[in-house]
């Protein structure tokens, strides 16, 4: 008897030896590149580098080596690589705390979204520039009063000759102030009380178009990555509609589900763990046990997350497991912060002379976001409960 629970422990075949060897080789290439970049001072390792480390130069250097859009077909600038291989590359970059924020959303979700739902013209025009690390795309989903409840989005697009006029306000839009486009969830039809999820569409808004205003939303430490994007009757041509008008909800849901279990859900604080590991290695058996538990958990999450990548390649991905990986991974990210504080007297400060204190400060200040972004932990657990049949 099969039940929804079986999805939780469905075995995933390990990669064959040829693929495993290719992945090992790619990891070595990335490591060599990172070591060289570090030597040349091209970046300083930091926690949460996929949100906090914005470097167009670095993104272009990655693109040259084929590490952006690598799963995309070759004709769009990709390498037609497996998700498993992309996962390995992303892991290496995040584990090193490398600045990957500039191309992040284009690589992780906008490109795959265009491949699933976009027009041929969109793919031809946009994907190669993304894969070159030159075209950055922000995500416009949340609104001032919507929070996790995306169905309450109120930004409206009204049809005009040749396209749409968009009016509304998006918030928490990371890096909108230095991105070119914003993949924007809008209402293209009035709310239907009978169907909360009907009438949404996804548009690509040119952030330099007339009527677009990007206002910073300073982060709690004064940093700037969040923005409010105000759209005042902004024209978007029909060619920039992604997928089918009215199907926006389905598209966004698929987008969210698939992007949940990546390494950014368990590696945001890895640079701190590595530092901690080095600093505390000689610290006695008890501290060894603390570190070992973190290693074990990370190892387990890697098994689960690479399992998801393999199942995406096999076309059998489970949104149940992706939700679990995100929930557990972000809890681990927080636990690493707690343990890093606990086992060494620390004076965390963003400008601390000591690297441990500095990484700890970054991690702590960013920690509140870990369990909020991409669906709060509570919402994810609700999804899991439903998926396993709790009614």
């Amino acid at each position, binding site marked *: 008897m099969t039940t929804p*629970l079986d999805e*939780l422990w469905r075995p995933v075949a390990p990669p064959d030896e040829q693929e495993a060897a290719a992945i090992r080789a790619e990891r070595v290439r990335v490591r060599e590149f990172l070591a060289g970049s570090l030597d040349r001072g091209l970046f300083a390792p930091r926690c949460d580098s996929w949100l906090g480390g914005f470097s167009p130069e670095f993104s272009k250097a990655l693109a040259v080596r084929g590490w952006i859009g690598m799963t995309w077909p070759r004709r769009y600038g990709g390498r037609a690589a497996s998700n498993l291989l992309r996962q390995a590359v992303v892991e290496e970059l995040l584990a090193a705390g490398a600045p990957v924020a500039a191309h992040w959303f284009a690589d992780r979700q906008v490109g795959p979204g265009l491949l699933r739902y976009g027009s041929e013209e969109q793919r031809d025009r946009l994907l190669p520039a993304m894969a070159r690390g030159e075209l950055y795309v922000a995500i416009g989903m949340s609104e001032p009063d919507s929070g996790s409840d995306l169905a309450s989005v109120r930004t409206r697009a009204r049809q005009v000759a040749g396209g749409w006029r968009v009016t509304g306000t998006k918030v928490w839009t990371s890096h909108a102030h230095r991105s070119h486009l914003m993949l924007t969830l809008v209402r293209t039809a009035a709310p239907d009380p009978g169907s909360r999820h009907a009438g949404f569409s996804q548009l690509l808004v040119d952030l330099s178009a007339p009527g677009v205003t990007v206002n910073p939303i300073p982060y709690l430490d004064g940093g700037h990555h969040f923005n409010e994007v105000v759209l005042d009757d902004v024209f978007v041509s029909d060619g920039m509609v992604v997928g089918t008008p009215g199907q926006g909800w389905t598209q966004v849901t698929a987008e969210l589900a698939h992007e949940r279990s990546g390494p950014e859900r368990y590696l945001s604080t890895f640079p701190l763990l590595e530092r901690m590991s080095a600093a505390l290695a000689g610290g006695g058996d008890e501290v060894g046990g603390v570190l070992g538990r973190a290693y074990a958990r990370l190892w*387990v999450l890697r098994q689960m997350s690479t399992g998801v990548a393999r199942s995406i390649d096999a076309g059998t991905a489970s949104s149940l497991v992706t939700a679990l990986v995100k929930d557990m991974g972000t809890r681990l990210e927080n636990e690493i912060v707690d343990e890093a504080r606990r086992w060494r007297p620390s004076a965390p400060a963003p400008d601390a002379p000591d690297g441990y204190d500095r990484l700890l400060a970054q991690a702590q200040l960013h920690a509140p976001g870990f369990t909020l972004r991409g669906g709060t932990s509570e919402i994810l657990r609700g999804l899991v409960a439903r998926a396993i049949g709790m*009614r």
Partner: protein
Amino acid sequence: MEELHQLIGRICLDHDNDEDGLWRTLTETGLDRAGIPERFGGTGGDPADALAVAAALAEHGAATPVADQSVLAGWLAARAGIRLPAGLVVVAGDADLRSENGRIHGTARRVPWASRAGHLLVPVATAPDRTAVALVRVEQVRVRPGRNLADEPRDDVEFVAVVPDESRTVAAPAHDILLHRAALVRAVQIAGSLRAVLRMTLRYSTERVQFGRRLSQLDVVRQQVALMAGEVAATSAAVGAAIDQLLLADDTGATRFAVAAAKVQAGTAATAVARAAHQVHGAIGVTREYPLHRHTRRLWAWRDESGGEEFWARRLSALVHGADRPLWETLVG
């Protein structure tokens, strides 16, 4: 694997609360010796088969020494070139054991199922990398019965100048390899038991009505069960990866890492899942009659056996810090 699981399910159902009958059927079907080559007294297959049997039995809440025989005694016998005699054979190992002029002395503590065994397979270190593996009849030793939290036999076995029926020397520090295998067995059993606890809790929550609603409709319960699901999935993934690694290579750093991490995960999950399951079940869950305790008491026992989380976490740390490469590379393997 699915059919194996169903077969074992049927057998367990047929012998509910009848340990002896269950054991008889398992020996008649040869499931008690899966994964042991035929020439060493087994029914063939690889360790993954034996572990699949162990997982299924654990999932069905069966009290049996099968895994201790098939995975541990079977492997040690094959390694030493000893053919397992009929009846139950389990490994009795302990650092306290020593061999003097071919006679074994010392006490092996908390040996699983010793009091039910006909023979014991006894590894005794004779040099840093040499192990004598001896086959001893249980009549030759004194067994002091003990039990774990699940009332499974964990017996002290005293050897006084015991002359084994047979003894072969293995050119390896067998204790360490056995320890990893034993940890994997318990992790596999825990994974099976966790699956059963999750099923049981899910079912209970969708049937039980309180304050006019099913428990499964209460957000607090939903969150708890989702957290359980995460731990269960993680343990299954960990154990699966460790088995894959074991099949790839018996005793490499990567295998040791995987087994250690799997046991840490299994122990962590055992604690969290047992607690949440009891919390969701409420009073009915702590009764002898309701089957939850068949699993939770085993989870509490098994997490400590063959090394608890702390033991294996320290080992992991030693593996990482003893390696001549960065943490990340050791983690990736």
